[in-house]
């Protein structure tokens, strides 16, 4: 079972966790107090860039029968949509820019360029996902309801289709999100899911209708004889944006090392434990400034989960401080390249498609979920939490994980050696 006791898992003392909470609070305060014109200029220029790209893309597509124009237009439009979704929509709706007091760049008024209404998404994402991050059964974003992403969930025959469902989800990600949010909204409002003319359903229909008609009817129609190629360009741009958003989300949440939690854990969670859950539950993507920008700084998923409402352009500097804290408290900081992180997520998707009896690890000690019980086997060798008096350095989870890994490797070697010996003696 996933983590039920984050203190035991993290190998930190109660005091350590309180101290850690204060350190995180200090980061928040510093950033909040230093928000100013530089940040405002940043978001304004992103908005300008996004709108210019979108207009340029649409204009280029008037000549979409020419291959070069099709390529330029589609590229510009895809880029515009990616920026709109990641750096603008997602972050604005998190309230990252509410401090500017600008009604046009505000979490309460922003509507994004996706089929799902912002209102629905905010409920499911800002509230459910960010409050109950990675709590199995409470955070519906674990697998989005169609993928089994942890062996804490029971295997069902439908999971055999997972590899296929995964591809469909990637291609149609905005629809997946929209439907996911729609059902969350219905549940929140208590309307029967099947009642077709309920409020949430109507909001969804209006929003999705406008989005589809814009990209697939109006703009193609406007380009006259080029309608066919404009249509394909718009479809392509949407799909590219979908795949990208899917990749970023999956790499931020499903690589090995992004831990899962149980509802029991949540019941008595302290503020420090809340921070710890966010820290241990997310994963970053390493890459340069271009990667940061295109992911809407969700390459700093860990920092985003710790401080979802601080301006995205500050995540790099926050990350430096978070990393330093991880060093000090001996905590892991899960990060890796896009390719690596996605490979790990993909491996989980395919592995968990099959029934548990084909899987070796247990949910206490698997690559994608573990729990405090994972350390039990080598308990006497896993050092207890401690603070070095001379340096103030703490001994925590990272040390425990290292000892655990060493033992696991040694054991694997021993077993392999044994079986080889057995084979040899059998051959003799």
């Amino acid at each position, binding site marked *: 079972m996933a983590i039920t006791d984050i203190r035991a898992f993290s190998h930190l003392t109660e005091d350590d966790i309180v101290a850690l909470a204060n350190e995180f*609070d200090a980061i*928040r*305060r510093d950033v*909040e*107090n230093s*928000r*100013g*014109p*530089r*940040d*405002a*200029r940043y978001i304004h220029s992103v908005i*300008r860039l996004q*709108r*210019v790209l979108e*207009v340029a893309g649409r204009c280029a597509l008037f000549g979409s029968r020419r291959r070069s124009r099709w390529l330029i237009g589609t590229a510009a439009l895809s880029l515009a949509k990616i920026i709109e979704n990641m750096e603008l929509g997602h972050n604005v*709706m*998190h*309230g990252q820019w*509410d*401090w*500017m*007091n*600008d*009604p*046009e760049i*505000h*979490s*309460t008024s922003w*509507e*994004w*360029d996706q089929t799902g209404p912002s209102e629905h998404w*905010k*409920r499911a994402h*800002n*509230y459910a996902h*960010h*409050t109950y991050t990675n709590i199995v059964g409470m955070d519906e974003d674990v697998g989005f309801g169609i993928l089994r992403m942890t062996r804490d969930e029971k295997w069902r025959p439908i999971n055999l289709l997972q590899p296929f469902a995964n591809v469909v989800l990637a291609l149609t990600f905005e629809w997946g999100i929209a439907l996911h949010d729609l059902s969350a909204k219905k549940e929140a409002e208590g309307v029967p899911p099947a009642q077709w003319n309920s409020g949430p359903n109507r909001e969804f229909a209006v*929003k999705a209708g*406008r*989005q589809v*008609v*814009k990209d697939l009817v*109006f*703009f193609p129609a*406007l380009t006259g004889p080029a309608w066919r190629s404009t249509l394909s360009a718009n479809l392509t741009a949407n799909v590219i944006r979908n795949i990208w958003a899917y990749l970023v989300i999956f790499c931020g949440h499903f690589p090995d090392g992004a831990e899962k939690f149980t509802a029991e854990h949540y019941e008595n969670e302290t503020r420090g434990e*809340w921070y710890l859950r966010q820290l241990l539950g997310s994963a970053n993507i390493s890459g340069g400034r271009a990667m940061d920008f295109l992911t809407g700084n969700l390459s700093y998923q860990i920092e985003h989960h710790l401080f*979802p*409402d601080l301006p995205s352009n500050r995540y790099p500097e926050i990350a430096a401080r978070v990393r330093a804290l991880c060093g000090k408290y001996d905590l892991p900081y899960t990060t890796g390249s896009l390719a690596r992180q996605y490979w790990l997520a993909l491996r989980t998707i395919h592995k968990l498609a099959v029934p548990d009896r084909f899987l070796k690890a247990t949910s206490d000690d698997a690559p994608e979920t573990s729990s405090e019980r994972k350390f039990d086997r080598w308990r006497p060798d896993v050092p207890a939490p401690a603070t070095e008096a001379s340096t103030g350095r703490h001994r925590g989870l990272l040390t425990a994980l290292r000892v655990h890994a060493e033992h696991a490797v040694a054991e694997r070697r021993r077993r392999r050696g044994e079986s080889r010996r057995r084979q040899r003696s059998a051959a003799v």
Partner: protein
Amino acid sequence: MGLKEWIEKPAAHVAPGEKSLSNVLRGAVARLTTPLLPDDYLHLVNPLWSARELRGRIVSVRQETPDSATIVIRPGWGFDFGYAPGQYIGIGLHIEGRWHWRSYSLTSAPTRDDKVISIAVKAMPEGFLSSHLVGGVPEGTVVRLAAPQGDFVLPDPPPAKILFMTAGSGITPIMSMLRTLDRRAVAREIDLPDVVHIHSAPTAENVMFRSELERFDATHDRFRVHVRHTREKGKFALSELDEVCPDWRERQTWACGPQQMLDDITAYWTTEGIEDRVHLERFAVSRADTSGSGGTITFAKSGKTVTVDGATTILEAGESVGALMPFGCRMGICQTCVVPLEKGHIVDLRSGKEHAEGERVQTCISAAAGDCTLDV
């Protein structure tokens, strides 16, 4: 739904003051720019080309007194010049990356002819925005505007006999009324009503609009201004009314100035049994008490009020009296609970940051800093 309404629909919430043709066009184009409006693209070219939200450009800043100035603004698309003299507008300025909002009385007379409006601002010692406006806002600055509002207004036609009582910057809404009376008198070739204006200011050079008041006094027989320099002569006592304006009881009175003055006037008129003849404008110049000492919170939509200490969040306060409040995480991360602060100040319990009227605040992590009103 008619065809016109259908086309207009995506832009239906925009610019009530606009001509409907432009909204039909806006609605049609909005189907291509959805989920944005065409204005969102246009205002990147010219910041005034947007009716999604009222905007204006400052065309001149004119010193009135050493610590006050008249700001003349040319509003952009969608502004309704049909306001009533005495109303105020909200104005937002972008300073240090944030928009700061305050309300100021209009001093201009409502007319479509010159396409500009004006406000007069007095720099308050601790007033960040007012000092900025008086002391150094450059001409050409783009500002956000909120539509004129308020019921401290002069009716049309005005009553035959009027008394204005003002002190300090309380003269600003009255200035709009005077200018309107003056304009109408000229345009319609009619006489001004009988107006007596009693105004107080510390010294002669602190009198806002002094030369204009003198000119009115000189050119209109039926307008009489009585200026009191309080530093020399002390405060104007209401018992002096019988002498300065013997028929004050028969007049419709408009009064604007410090809280104490307005309270005195209310009491005085009430004892005379003519409280229905006085109209008051209260400027909420109360500063926030950032210690978060609490206060009385009013929930405007549900009409509920509750008095709380500085540690109770607004969300909890609202729930305790059954005001319908949105909420999600209750810990400041999800933004579900954000609502507009209509009046007063609140303080963010996490950062100690203060928020003032016109801002949207997270109720789950904010407490009242003095009395405040929320739009829920």
